[in-house]
């Protein structure tokens, strides 16, 4: 009934027009910076690979996104939650300059992460290189009859 009403009164649900708009936004973002989506993912992995050399990163909450105001203004915005260093934890060498500003804002979740050794391990072993190899392995699997 609501459906009928909303259709009668012209308040259509999300149709293919909205999908078209989303897809266009996505494709133009990459066209405009001349970096296709796959390459962008590679870049993100490489950025992370560098960061995890120095910091413990909560990989699940990493956000690296391209923000585009218009055709000529694009910026890469990264939010990379890092574990704060607690003396009790199995300490990892951290550069003298200390953690970036973001770390100061680290919330409870990050602190917990630092306490939880297994979580740290998981984050470490899930390095982009490993992830890539894992993917390559999968691909191999696929090829097997």
């Amino acid at each position, binding site marked *: 009934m609501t459906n009928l009403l909303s259709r009668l*009164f012209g308040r259509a649900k999300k149709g293919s027009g909205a999908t078209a708009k989303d897809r266009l936004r996505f494709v133009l973002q990459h066209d405009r910076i001349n970096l296709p989506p796959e390459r962008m993912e590679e870049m993100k992995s490489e950025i992370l690979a560098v960061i995890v050399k120095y910091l413990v990163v909560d990989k699940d909450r990493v956000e690296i996104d391209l923000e585009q105001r218009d055709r000529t203004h694009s910026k890469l915005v990264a939010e990379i939650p890092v574990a704060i260093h607690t003396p009790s934890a199995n300490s990892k060498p951290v550069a003298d300059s200390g953690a970036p500003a973001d770390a100061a804002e680290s919330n409870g979740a990050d602190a917990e992460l630092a306490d939880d050794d297994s979580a740290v391990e998981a984050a470490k072993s899930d390095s982009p290189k490993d992830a890539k190899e894992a993917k390559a392995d999968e691909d191999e699997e696929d090829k097997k009859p």
Partner: protein
Amino acid sequence: MGGKVVTISSGKGGVGKTTATANLGISLASLGKKVVVIDADIGLRNLDVIMGLENRIVYDLVDVVEGRSKLRQAMIKHKKFDDLFLIPAAQTRDKMAVSPEDMVKLANELREDFDYILIDSPAGIERGFRNALEPADEVLIVTNPEVSAVRDADRIIGLIEAADKGPGKLIINRLKTELVKKGEMLSSDDVFDILGLSIVGIIPEDELVLSASNSGIPVTLNMQSKAGMAFNNVARRVIGEDVPFMNLDENPGILQRLAKLLNGR
């Protein structure tokens, strides 16, 4: 500096550049302007048939550029308007026969005698597009409310800006109001949000455009045609008039009017 050169471009092919050029030419002429339209799509001559002038061609753009004909000899006068002329493209040559510098020289000559010089650009981003772009004072970008056409328009817009010819203005052609209402087509607002250029025309899908191209009488000359009216409005905006966008709804039924009230729009 006299007349103004307006180039009609698109990126993607088949979106309505030639249709737009022909109709703008006629509308501007009917507004009392002196107009010449140039078909820059060398090898794929089309503007002549759309304007119904195909059987009057003697010389073409390449003949002028290569000095075989005087400019005046290659200009074909429209049947209905004494101040509307066509310079046809060569049909058997390729785009390399003309250079951007040739086009600038030609346009500068025409500026002395005409108010508007409209250039129908070929699709693509290569030589033909460069030829059409180089002499432009203003660029109109035709697109359809469709993913691939808008994407290609964005590419062209970037190139136009890089060539210091921007910002262009948009003509959104073949809009189907019914589909937009159902959420099944990009609206003109969507296209504006994405491309960020001001819109100079919203042209509805209209079967009369096909009959017009069959008969060689552009649709602006047909009072019954919504597309024709919309093209006429584009021409008036081009000459600087402030024309509101027309309501493309057929006859809004009682339910639709109620819906508008209820939804507050």
